[in-house]
């Protein structure tokens, strides 16, 4: 589904990623683990086109991403939930979820259908839909960000540190939700960066260990 | 676009100007620093001045220059602010490329330059600034003003409109918000209080210098129903005001006195009956100008060259240069035919009387010029700008004695003063 080959990224003259290569397959959950500063977030941001690459290539279903502008990623089906949620506080939860659909100029019926799908997968959102996103708690916000990513994640869903800052009870809840997504959407590949891998043990198909910008271990 | 001309002139000056370290040596050319507004709203007034300088210098040079030496001018834009003007003045003076200055247009710049002229021993002629403060503060032996003084100018306007409209009751004033405007307002108010004490000032407005819109001021003036509106707005401001006030009926409602109105006669349709005039006697179509017989040819040449007739700043500038020319000729003669030093030129300027293109000017002991004032009303006469019902006021009669506080002097006037003054239409 998504293939990363020899990705090199440099930030302010420092090599942050060095020849990172891996492949994501549909229906599988890949967990990217590593120390802080190892390059987990950088990997996701580079794939999303939020950082320039120095070298290497990334393909999604045969489409090379290198030449495309950052905002084209969403259009070809990459959904992304950043670590710090980044919701638009004065828009409602539902409006937040709709943003990627609007950006892709989806016709109204398709928007409606996808929105219903998101609500099915994440029933917690149903009661929140009219609340301003600035007023939901941190844990709820994580779910909203997940819903927003699911809106367009036709091929790949990428979640950056989804459990970060969540109290254990909420983290467990989130992990269960993620599992449900994984089970119901077998046609997409999921990539999660995580520093607490035990929460994902149940659903992880592959684990990649990133150290100092390099993948040092990949285990299925 | 006129700018390349300026640049080539500057270059030409830089190349041609020869040092005049030894005053007795006749230079290759007489370098002249000319300060005026070349940009900003004030350029509407400053540019005709610059063009006047260009043309008169061209004519002087065609007749063999001054004492056989051609004149070369360097123009400096006053819009750069006092600091830039002063540094340019110093640079020109100390680089020895000029021997005399024609500076400046704005009163603020004149006040700043006059002590500098003395310090650098640079004969300088204030070609336009009219502030009565100029020679009150300290005397300058190198700084001369062979033209108007605000006191004579605005007292003359008050006399004129009082004579034309003897039953005036309500007067409004709209002047630019800086020294020139405020000075004029206090002179007008003092003169009215002295000459017709029952007049009421119904509005006194000072819009910002360079303001683009006067709509609110027009409403306010309109609402206060004045018989006479006095204004010394000038340049782009005056044009803006006239164009905004005319459609809104202000000129129908009241008699408007535009002290610098002659400058916009050609560019706007001033309603008939509007009192206009020039500051000083620089009206190129006045009877005296026709008698002297140079102004009309000058105006035609000007029209030929620049596409419009001269306005009074043009004449003021040209007259100023003629005064300098006369001073040089007097100094050369006094020096036995030798080229004079700057000190000798300054000496020659003292007490000089010159017949300019539009009348006589005399520099009195405080270096201030005594000039007649020409005022009239907008007339209609074919294609040429015209002023009807003119009166020519004797400059000496309207000027307070040297060193005397002008406002206090005005307060000494009485309604009887009006009787001795020329009446509208008396100057033909």
């Amino acid at each position: 589904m998504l293939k990363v080959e020899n990705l090199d990224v440099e930030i302010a003259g420092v090599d942050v990623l060095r020849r990172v290569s891996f492949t994501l397959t549909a229906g599988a959950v890949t967990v990217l683990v590593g120390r802080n500063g190892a390059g987990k977030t950088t990997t996701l941001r580079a794939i999303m086109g939020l950082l320039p690459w120095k070298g290497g290539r990334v393909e999604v279903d045969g489409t090379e991403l290198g030449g495309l502008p950052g905002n084209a990623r969403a259009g070809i089906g990459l959904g992304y939930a950043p670590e710090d949620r980044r919701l638009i506080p004065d828009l409602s939860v539902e409006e937040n979820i709709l943003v990627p659909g609007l950006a892709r100029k989806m016709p109204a019926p398709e928007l409606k259908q996808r929105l219903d799908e998101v609500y099915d997968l994440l029933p917690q959102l149903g009661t929140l839909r009219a609340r301003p996103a600035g007023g939901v708690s941190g844990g709820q916000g994580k779910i909203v960000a997940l819903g927003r990513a699911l809106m367009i994640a036709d091929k790949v869903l990428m979640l950056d540190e989804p459990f970060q800052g969540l109290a254990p009870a909420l983290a467990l809840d989130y992990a269960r939700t993620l599992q449900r997504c994984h089970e119901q959407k077998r046609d997409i590949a999921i990539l999660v960066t995580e520093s607490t891998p035990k929460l994902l043990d149940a659903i992880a198909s592959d684990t990649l260990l990133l150290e100092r910008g390099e993948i040092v271990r990949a285990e299925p | 676009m006129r700018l390349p001309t300026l640049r080539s002139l500057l270059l030409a000056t830089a190349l041609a100007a020869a040092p005049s370290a030894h005053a007795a040596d006749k230079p290759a050319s007489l370098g002249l620093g000319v300060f005026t507004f070349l940009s900003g709203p004030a350029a509407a007034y400053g540019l005709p001045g610059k063009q006047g300088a260009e043309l008169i210098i061209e004519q002087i040079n065609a007749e063999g220059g001054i004492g056989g030496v051609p004149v070369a001018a360097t123009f400096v834009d006053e819009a750069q602010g006092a600091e830039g003007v002063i540094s340019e003045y110093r640079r020109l003076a100390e680089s020895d490329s000029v021997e005399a200055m024609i500076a400046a247009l704005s009163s603020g710049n004149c006040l700043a330059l006059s002590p500098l002229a003395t310090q650098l021993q640079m004969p300088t002629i204030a070609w336009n600034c009219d502030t009565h403060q100029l020679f009150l503060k300290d005397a300058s032996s190198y700084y001369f003003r062979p033209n108007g003084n605000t006191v004579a100018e605005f007292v003359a306007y008050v006399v004129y409109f009082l004579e034309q409209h003897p039953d005036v009751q309500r007067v409004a004033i709209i002047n630019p918000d800086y020294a020139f405007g405020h000075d004029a307002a206090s002179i007008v108010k003092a003169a009215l209080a002295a000459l017709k004490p029952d007049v009421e000032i119904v509005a006194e407005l000072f819009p910002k210098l360079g303001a683009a819109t006067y709509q609110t001021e027009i409403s306010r003036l309109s609402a206060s129903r004045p018989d006479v509106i006095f204004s010394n707005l000038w340049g782009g401001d005056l044009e803006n005001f006239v164009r905004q006030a005319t459609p809104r009926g202000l000129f129908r409602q009241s008699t408007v006195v535009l002290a610098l109105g002659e400058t916009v006669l050609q560019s706007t349709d001033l309603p008939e009956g509007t009192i206009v005039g020039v500051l000083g006697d620089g009206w190129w179509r006045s009877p005296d100008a026709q008698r002297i017989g140079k102004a009309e040819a000058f105006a035609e040449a000007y029209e030929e060259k620049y596409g419009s007739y001269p306005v009074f700043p043009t004449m003021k500038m040209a007259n100023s240069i003629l005064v300098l020319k006369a001073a040089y000729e007097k100094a050369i003669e006094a020096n036995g035919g030798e080229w004079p030093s700057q000190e000798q030129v300054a000496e020659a300027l003292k007490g000089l009387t010159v017949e300019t293109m539009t009348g006589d000017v005399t520099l009195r002991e405080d270096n201030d010029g005594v000039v007649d004032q020409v005022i009239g009303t907008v007339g209609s006469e074919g294609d040429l700008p015209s002023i009807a019902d003119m009166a020519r006021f004797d400059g000496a009669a309207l000027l307070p004695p040297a060193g005397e506080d002008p406002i206090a002097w005005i307060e000494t006037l009485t309604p009887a003063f009006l009787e001795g003054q020329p009446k509208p239409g008396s100057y033909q």
Partner: protein
Amino acid sequence: MPKPLIGLAAGVALLAALPLAVPFMTFVVTLAVAKGFAALGVALLLRAGLISLGHAMYFAIGAYTTAFLMQKTGITDFAILVAASIIVATLAGLAFGAFLVRYRAIFFAMLNLAVSMVIYALCSKLYGVTGGTDGLRVGVPTVFAWVPEKAAFDTFLLYATLGLMLVLGWLGHRYLKSPLGHALAAVHTNEVRLEYLGVSAWSTLLTAYGISAGLAGLGGALSAMAIGHVLPEFAFWTESGHLVLTAVLGGVGGVAGPFIGSIFLELVHVVAVGVAAEAWNLIIGVALICVIFFLPRGLFGLIEGRRGKTGGTDL
């Protein structure tokens, strides 16, 4: 002798010698250095990330203080005039600064602009004090018992200005390297942390603001004496913009930057007036944009090279 000091000595020697070769440069150099003080003041605030679009008001306050004292009180001594101008400008800076330094970013810039426009309007309105739009004339000050001619005073003023530049430049340098100076840069990067270290960002900024106003006031006083006249335009907002421009052009990383910027600008001005007077703003605008693009540390950065990484404020 370390390299930068040699460069400094050479630069100051050149400035001191230039007027001997070209007399009218006395005025140009004096004015450039005088404005350099004001630009240095602006540069101090830029280190704290604060851009003042109103600093010309303190320049004007300094200039008017000198002019007013000379004309209305008869005080003519150079040292007293300079000291009084610095004090008045500093006090004004502390008074306005007390509420202005509560603001950051654009809001700081705009409020300074607003206050300076009120000062500008006052300068042109208060006839009795400021002489209105005609401004005030500044005569030739005396220096202790010496009553100089204008030309002699101009020469004295040049060397006095250069001397002040060295003394205040050195003090400024010490200030920037001190805890208080570093706290200034720290306000820019993390005010919350600074407060949590027990340091008041407000006092830190107010100190800097007072100093910067004093420097601008000094620049104004020296300029007033050099020019011989003060006008309300000194306080207009585009003048403030030019001060910021001067600081950035020169570089705010060190004390020398603003002076280098100011001297560079004055010299370019002298050249431009002869060659392309009508395109003066255009030349400066292009130069400014080029500096922003290619020399983020200003002209000073060019000289300084890549030394001193920490604490240097790139814009």
